[in-house]
């Protein structure tokens, strides 16, 4: 009777769920082996990372409170906002260990939310790239155009709040040259900031948020601005100020001449100058090393526990006495 088979769906291994398959079962041997492998891998990596972080020499100096003169100590805001006060400040840094070139000079800001949602949005990508798009300011409110409707280039709060403290370092009477070229990402200088876009009407009226820009230099060469506009991910961050290409010997004293211009006093922010070397793991950070060692250690501890478990409470694989209907047998 042919029509009986006509309704049968066509057979395929996929539709009948009979594809060849690998059915792994983790036996005790595999469990112990995995924990031991993880432990054996993680502890050495953790120790390597920890020692790399230990090798980093970092000098960090908080200067925002110390650089306010005593007569303004209770009113730092009026000190910083007054254009006539003397903003130069001298600090001395002690060098604990030899710093091998290249030494990176950073400014570190704390309690500064560059990741605030409205701050991050407040810029115009088109305007930065192309001089003809200078009127593309819809996302730049409140720093979009001047009172007489002329466009501000670059517009937006990120550019407006440009960090403008400067540092001059010297040691043993000789000035240390800080190389300020090549501090921004090359991809930014080539593709995001136009080489024929010049600052216009920038920081001219209203509230002053930060530094000014030289109108003769195109945006692709304004590396401080480019570094600043790569908004930081976390509220405690540092940004590259420059590079020192000579070594600094241990136990030297570095004299730093700071122009304390940037106003972090209004919102309780903090400013620090940081000199640091780097290794393959970045700057000084013990966390990754410690975390790896901890996880590796816990895995080795678990491996030992599992070995004890399998030795003192063994279970044969596939042992039918563990089946629920064999543990509670139903008698006919």
């Amino acid at each position, binding site marked *: 009777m042919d029509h009986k088979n006509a309704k049968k769906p066509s057979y395929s291994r*996929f539709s009948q*769920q009979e*594809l*060849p398959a*690998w*059915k*792994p*079962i*983790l036996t005790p041997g595999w*469990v112990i082996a*995995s*924990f031991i492998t*993880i432990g054996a891998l993680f502890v050495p*990596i953790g120790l390597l990372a920890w020692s790399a972080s230990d090798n980093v020499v970092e000098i960090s100096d908080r200067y925002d409170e110390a650089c306010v003169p005593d007569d303004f100590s209770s009113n730092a805001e009026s000190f910083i906002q007054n254009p006539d006060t003397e903003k130069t400040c001298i600090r001395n840094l002690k060098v604990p260990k030899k710093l091998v070139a290249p030494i990176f000079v950073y400014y570190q800001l704390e309690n500064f*939310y560059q*990741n*605030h*949602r409205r701050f*991050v949005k407040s810029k115009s*990508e088109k305007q930065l790239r192309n001089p003809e798009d200078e009127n593309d300011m819809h996302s730049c409110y409140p720093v979009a155009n001047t009172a007489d409707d002329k466009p501000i280039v670059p517009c937006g709060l990120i550019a407006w709040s440009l960090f403008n403290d400067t540092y001059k370092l010297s040691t043993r009477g000789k000035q240390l040259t800080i190389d300020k070229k090549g501090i921004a*990402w090359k*991809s*930014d200088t080539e*593709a*995001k900031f136009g080489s024929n876009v010049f600052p216009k009407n920038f920081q001219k009226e209203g509230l002053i948020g930060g530094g000014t820009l030289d109108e003769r230099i195109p945006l692709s060469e304004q590396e401080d601005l480019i570094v600043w506009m*790569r*908004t930081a*991910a*976390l509220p405690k*961050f*540092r*940004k590259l100020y420059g590079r020192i290409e000579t070594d600094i010997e241990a136990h030297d004293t570095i004299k730093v001449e700071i122009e304390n211009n940037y106003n972090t006093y209004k919102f309780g922010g903090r400013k620090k100058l940081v000199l640091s070397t780097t290794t393959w*793991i*970045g*700057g000084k*950070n013990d*966390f*990754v090393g410690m*975390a*790896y060692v901890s*996880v590796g250690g816990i*895995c080795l501890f678990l491996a030992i526990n*599992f070995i004890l*478990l*399998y030795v003192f*409470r063994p*279970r*044969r*694989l*596939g042992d*039918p*006495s563990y*089946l*629920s*209907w*064999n543990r509670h*047998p*139903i*008698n*006919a």
Partner: protein
Amino acid sequence: MADVGIGISGQEGRQAVMASDFAMGQFRFLVPLLLVHGHWNYQRMGYMILYNFYRNAVFVLVLFWYVLFTGFTLTTAITEWSSVLYSVLYTSVPTIVIAILDKDLSRRSLLTYPQLYGDGQRQESYSSTLFWLTIADTLWQSIVVFYVPFFAYWKSDIDGSSLGDLWTLTVVFLVNIHLAMDVIRWTWISDASIWGSIIATCICVIIIDVIPMLPGYWAIFDLVSKGSFWICLLGIQIAALFPRFGIKMFIQHCKPSDIQIAREADKFGNSMELTGQEIEMNPSRR
């Protein structure tokens, strides 16, 4: 109260068929329908519901933890395009494939030992306890995924887009490796979907970061040149998954479910008959 209506079409006509959820031609088809397909369906649905809660919650919780550090202004840790593609491309295909194809026991075992159907009656694949355990596991994994890069890059000069890329890649890897840990039966399709999704994610993140119009331009290339990125990526997977792995192996050893025993018996060839016991129902062989 009935859960499913099954109609048998036959001599008395098709009225039952019209009113039913499933219809078939002969009474003997009821046995595989229940014992085989019913069991597989229950196990797949139970696991998939728990996995989907986990997959979505882990992603959202990473965004949640980040909000605490943006002055509560809801900046998204992960770029908008990756957020959209997460559910659509990065993690959806393995979910669907495993939900359709994963089998915990073979048809033969299920038909030979009908008592295995009791697993569904005892709610062993989905219950309130399992749900809350899944949520606790999700919370732990999201804490690891968020806070390891957070502490690793605290006080550094990393920018929002790069850290967002790290979180995106970490979450996608984690969610897929978690699924890989739970897959019972690996076919070539499961392999292709899980590892393919991971590769697709990497490609998409690279493509998103090659568009100059977007703020995260070139962030991924800058990120992979840092040694700390690779170390974080590896460490997070292991740190997030080892508690789940340990607990699962412990329960598997000390309180094995019927399914677990049946799988081991299948693979290592032990007979599941315990001499001297009666089995309730006559096995129906196909």
